[in-house]
């Protein structure tokens, strides 16, 4: 339909750029207020999106070629001559002509940084694995004059902590590497400029009065370090020719400034997960303003986002091959949270939210940045369907419930890593890996002794927990096992909290993230994020003990090494309350037990049900369990039902997971991954999108917290495993992140293939 009367051209609007709408964000550091007063919600479809520019395409081709070359040769490039630091490296470029957004961690793309502060041994092992050596003198000086976080922790560990760690009861602890999981509010760099942030922090420092308690001394020292970090950040950007002392004025500057903020974080830290935050709605304000003023075109807007995402895809950290064993595919968890709703009922989806997702089309599917859609029932329908379509096409998105998180965190939180929510710039978390609750169940049966590890001195099974009476019954009695298990969990909780306190005390002392914390409020709320692996095994085991007959088969040491199960029993993943309630009770019990032990710096205890890909390694380290799982067999990832046991279809499986409580219990996230076969989710492509949207809506309405959705065939994966060259970019969601399938180890590939594929023939 044509419009009858066009408004005559107005030549006056093409140059003037309107000022942002005023608000309290001008008086104090308050990015949320700026967003709320200035953003434009977008409820339409993806029709406005455009292809990548020539520049972007050429740049990405170069970048991709470099990445493929490193994957092919298995060799990495490391800046060997110096240690990490915000301003420690010369500027690096991939192609100055093509790069619209600049900045690499070191002085060249894909060149990794040596960060010795988390743990020196980790660095040495990593370099050794790649046949590299750091510049002469560096190691000697560091070891002579500095101490790492790792050394600090081991100076303070107790024998019990060491035992729990070496038996694999507590694993993945950040005691030898950077803890990560902290999200700086990188938007502050663009909105305020560093000069303003430095001034504000100086004022915070000056205002911090009171007696010099240990706590206050530490706080003052940290504020001073933060000021120095901000100054370094400014110098780092100046090397690239930018003055980020002042606020960003254009869309291009806003994107560049935010990226500089993040770049400082990944130059300074080698954290396990270095997440990006929630930036698209913020950036959209600058982009829409420039578009409206005719300063940029849609193609240029997309170019900014594409080029930002290229940079995010090229983030690399130096890690050991063993780390890769645990977390496959060289993940960096550059998690960006997208969408969600504002507390006033408007959607936080903007055009730039879609531009960001659109990079999966312009640049192709990829695991990083870890795109996390904050799902709400109230999200615009078009946006939901767009996401569902991208999931079917690229498998690169994860979904988390905004409706569960918004009441707890408001509308300016982001996800760190996979499922950890925090208010941006206001909360941080002490990352705590996870405890193996399946192994803990075996401890309840075996009197606190480990079923795999032998004590070197005695040649007997290693005693990890003390004072637990072994169960000697011929048939396991539910009440007895439950009572012992509670004892184990109580003891484990105390040990776990103490271990975490030790780790984070030392991390603050030896590897403090001054740059990231400078982009927080001066006073932050801290979470201590505990984790659990093996919840489905525990639920099924308890169910078997309760509803079937389970006879332990004991070895000469009286250790239950196998179990004979007679009769059927309800299994987690079928929406069967008899067993789902057991999963819930265990999670709640352990969460409560943890909370009884005070956490370092007054942190609030949270708990996650998340394994990432480490479910394979957990399996290796855990003996046969009473649910029928054999020793060495992988755990189910995250909160997933065990492979093949969720036999009532996807909805029943989702319902079981959705029953696990989030708020106050598993408040560091509950991870779930499902795989469905394309042809079973609808006969026509349009139906598939609708159905997937409906499944997501339904799951989150049931109270589900997180879900990764893979729409793929087992045959497709087997083919990709046998012929990796045919599909180099096949991306799949594992637990909480995505990986290139062909960068998984064979073992991990087989595990993924063995998972339940919901299909009907």
């Amino acid at each position, binding site marked *: 339909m044509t419009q009858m009367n066009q408004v005559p051209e107005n030549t006056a609007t093409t140059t003037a750029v309107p000022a942002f709408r005023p608000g309290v964000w001008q008086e104090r550091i308050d990015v949320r207020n700026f967003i709320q007063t200035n953003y434009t919600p977008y409820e339409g479809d993806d029709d406005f999106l455009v292809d990548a520019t020539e520049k972007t395409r050429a740049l990405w081709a170069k970048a991709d070629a470099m990445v493929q070359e490193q994957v092919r040769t298995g060799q990495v490039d490391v800046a060997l001559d110096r240690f990490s630091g915000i301003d420690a490296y010369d500027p690096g470029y991939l192609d100055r002509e093509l790069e619209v957004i600049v900045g690499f961690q070191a002085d060249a793309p894909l060149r990794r940084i040596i960060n010795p502060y988390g743990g020196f041994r980790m660095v040495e092992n990593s370099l050794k694995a790649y046949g590299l050596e750091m510049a002469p003198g560096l190691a000697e000086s560091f070891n002579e004059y500095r101490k790492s976080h790792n050394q600090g922790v081991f100076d303070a560990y107790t024998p019990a902590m060491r035992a729990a760690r070496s038996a694999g009861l507590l694993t993945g602890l950040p005691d030898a590497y950077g803890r990560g999981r902290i999200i700086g509010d990188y938007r502050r760099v663009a909105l305020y400029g560093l000069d303003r942030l430095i001034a504000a922090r100086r004022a915070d420092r000056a205002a911090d009065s009171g007696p010099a308690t240990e706590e206050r001394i530490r706080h003052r020292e940290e504020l001073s370090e933060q000021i120095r970090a901000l100054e370094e950040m400014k110098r780092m950007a100046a090397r690239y020719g930018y003055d980020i002392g002042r606020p960003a004025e254009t869309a291009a500057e806003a994107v560049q400034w935010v990226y500089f903020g993040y770049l400082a974080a990944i130059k300074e830290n080698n954290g396990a997960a270095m997440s990006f935050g929630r930036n698209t709605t913020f950036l959209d304000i600058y982009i829409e303003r420039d578009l409206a003023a005719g300063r940029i075109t849609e193609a240029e807007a997309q170019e900014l986002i594409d080029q930002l995402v290229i940079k995010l895809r090229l983030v690399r950290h130096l890690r050991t091959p063993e780390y890769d064993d645990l977390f496959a595919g060289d993940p960096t968890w550059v998690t960006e949270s997208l969408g969600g709703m504002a507390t006033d009922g408007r959607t936080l989806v903007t055009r730039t939210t879609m531009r960001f997702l659109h990079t999966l089309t312009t640049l192709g599917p990829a695991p990083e940045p870890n795109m996390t859609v904050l799902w709400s029932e109230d999200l615009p329908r078009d946006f939901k369907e767009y996401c569902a379509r991208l999931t079917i096409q690229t498998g690169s998105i994860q979904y988390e419930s905004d409706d569960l998180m918004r009441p707890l965190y408001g509308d300016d939180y982001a996800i760190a890593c996979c499922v950890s929510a925090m208010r941006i710039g206001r909360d941080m978390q002490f990352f705590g890996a996870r405890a193996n609750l399946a192994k803990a169940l075996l401890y309840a049966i075996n009197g606190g002794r480990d079923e795999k590890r032998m004590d070197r001195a005695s040649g007997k099974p290693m005693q990890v927990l003390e004072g637990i009476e072994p169960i000697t019954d011929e048939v396991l009695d539910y009440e007895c096992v439950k009572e012992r298990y509670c004892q184990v969990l109580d003891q484990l909780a105390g040990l776990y909290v103490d271990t975490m306190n030790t780790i984070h005390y030392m991390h603050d002392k030896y590897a403090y993230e001054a740059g990231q914390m400078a982009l927080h409020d001066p006073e932050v709320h801290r979470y201590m994020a505990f984790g659990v692996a093996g919840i489905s095994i525990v639920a099924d085991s308890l169910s078997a003990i309760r509803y079937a007959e389970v006879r332990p088969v004991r070895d000469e040491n009286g250790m239950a090494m196998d179990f004979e199960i007679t009769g059927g029993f*309800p299994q987690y993943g079928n*929406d069967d309350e008899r067993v789902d309630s057991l999963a819930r009770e265990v999670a709640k019990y352990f969460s409560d037990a943890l909370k009884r032990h005070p956490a370092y710096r007054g942190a609030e205890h949270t708990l996650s049900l998340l394994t990432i890909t480490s479910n394979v390694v957990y399996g290796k380290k855990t003996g046969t369990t009473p649910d029928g799982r054999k020793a060495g067999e992988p755990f189910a990832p995250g909160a997933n039902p065990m492979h093949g046991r969720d036999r*009532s279809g996807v909805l029943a499986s989702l319902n079981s997971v959705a029953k696990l409580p989030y708020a106050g219990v598993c408040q560091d996230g509950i991870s779930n991954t499902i795989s469905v076969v394309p042809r079973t989710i609808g006969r*026509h492509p349009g139906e598939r999108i609708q159905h997937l949207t409906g499944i997501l809506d339904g799951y989150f309405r049931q109270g589900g917290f997180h879900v990764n959705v893979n729409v793929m065939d087992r045959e497709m994966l087997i083919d990709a495993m046998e012929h990796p060259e045919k599909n180099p970019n096949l991306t799949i969601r594992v637990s909480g992140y995505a990986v290139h399938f062909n960068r998984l180890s064979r073992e991990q590939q087989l595990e993924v293939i063995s998972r339940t594929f919901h299909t009907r023939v």
Partner: protein
Amino acid sequence: MSEQGTTPSAAVAAADAAAAPAAGGAAAADRGTIGYIHSIETMGLLDGPGIRTVIFLQGCPLRCAYCHNPDSQPLRSEAATEMTPAEVLALAERQRSYFGEEGGVTFSGGEPLLQGAFLYECLRLLRDAGITTAVDTSGFGDPNWYRQVLPLVDTLLLDVKAFDAERFRDLIQGSFATWVNFADSLVENGFEGQIWIRHVMLPGWSDDEASMDRLVETVLPLGYLVDRIDILPYHTMGIEKHTAMGRPYRLEGLPPMDETRAWELERYANRRFIERLAAGRETGAGTRTPAPRRKEAEMNQVRESPYAVDPDTSQIWLRDGIDLRKLPLVRHLSIAAFEEMMSDFRMLQVRKGDVFFRSGDPADRLYIVATGQFKIYRYTVDGREQILYIYNPGDFVGGLNLLTGHRYVYNGQALEDSLICTMSKDFFDRHCLDNPHILRQILEKSYDRIRWAEDLISRLSSANAGIKTAELILRFADRYGVQTPEGIRIELNLNREELGSYAGLSRETFTRKLGEFRELGYLDFSGNRIILVKDPDALMAYFEG
């Protein structure tokens, strides 16, 4: 039924899924009506519209050669699980949050119509709970229950195994006459829902156009009850179970049906069916009188203005960039009246979503759309929004209301940021009432609205989603369509929800039909707002003979 494409992968023992504390416990006598369940699939996305939980009932009188769930054939089986209708309802309630507007529970099998009493109670409970139902049948149930069961079925998945008595006997050891009887007596038995025809295509048996023609003729008497025809390509996964049960597999050596070919033939069959229906109507054999379709009045054409537009002086007639002399109605005013109007006119800047008059408001102003678009709508008794009309630049609303002094009986809401000129009743009375050009325009517009209303009634009164969708799209094509080399391009400011509302369908159903039309090659769409009609004749066949 245990035909291809409708059995669960893992042959789940329903006990695991039912979460029923009583499972396997209490004696049947204590529990009232009992169903014998083969298995349950909580997420069925192929057995009826939307997301559905599929309950496979035990028992089937047929012995289809390709049956891949032969263990579901006996009515009583060791492996079967007993469930009460209340337990079925409880299970459905657990999945309700996924069902959306179209989804619900599907009863398959086996042949679900064999367990009439149980099925009847389940359907009744589900309907009372507001959950839609589908029954997947091959037409060989217990006829004593048809009168009770069929009125409660929203979607009937009707399997057509073959198209003549001989093939029927060969393939499934059943009587074609029984099937025909079943199909013929559906309406008589009180069935009021829609039908999805399904046919398992075996290579060498029915994989050609001639067979599809016969399929179409077989189901043609069902007329507009049929929503679509699904062709399920034969696969060989049933062999294993036959072997395990020690049964011979009669189709040994038959390769699986090529999926692409099956898909081509599905498109062919759907198209053919609609064409045949239309032809039937032409000869008076149709079941429904089609809505009359005529050329729209040329309301949108800008007619010659009585004022020659002089670019030098046009400034003074400009208001917010709009040359007021070009607006309909007012361009017929005398110069004197026009000048007076300049002071009376109010320009209303409305933002997308703004409601600028409501039902019950006095009609004291006339609204003329200068730029943008708005809709008028009201709420139906069940609380849904029903769009009555959409106004575009040059359209006006309120003329007749001003003439008659009636209040508005609908709401006006902007679909995009719009500029709307308003004229007071006082000015209208003084300058427009006696102006024949203006009155004529008001009459024309009123007439146009009445005709749209008639179309709306005919759309809403049809139960067939295909007709509703096709008709709406053609109306839009007529009115707003722009001919392009690729087809008729319609650009709309309505989202799917609003389009569905206009068509009298839920958003999900409308979107599904649109998707089906795309698959059939009738149209294409880009994003949600641009529809490209590629084959208007095919759409027309839905409602015009």
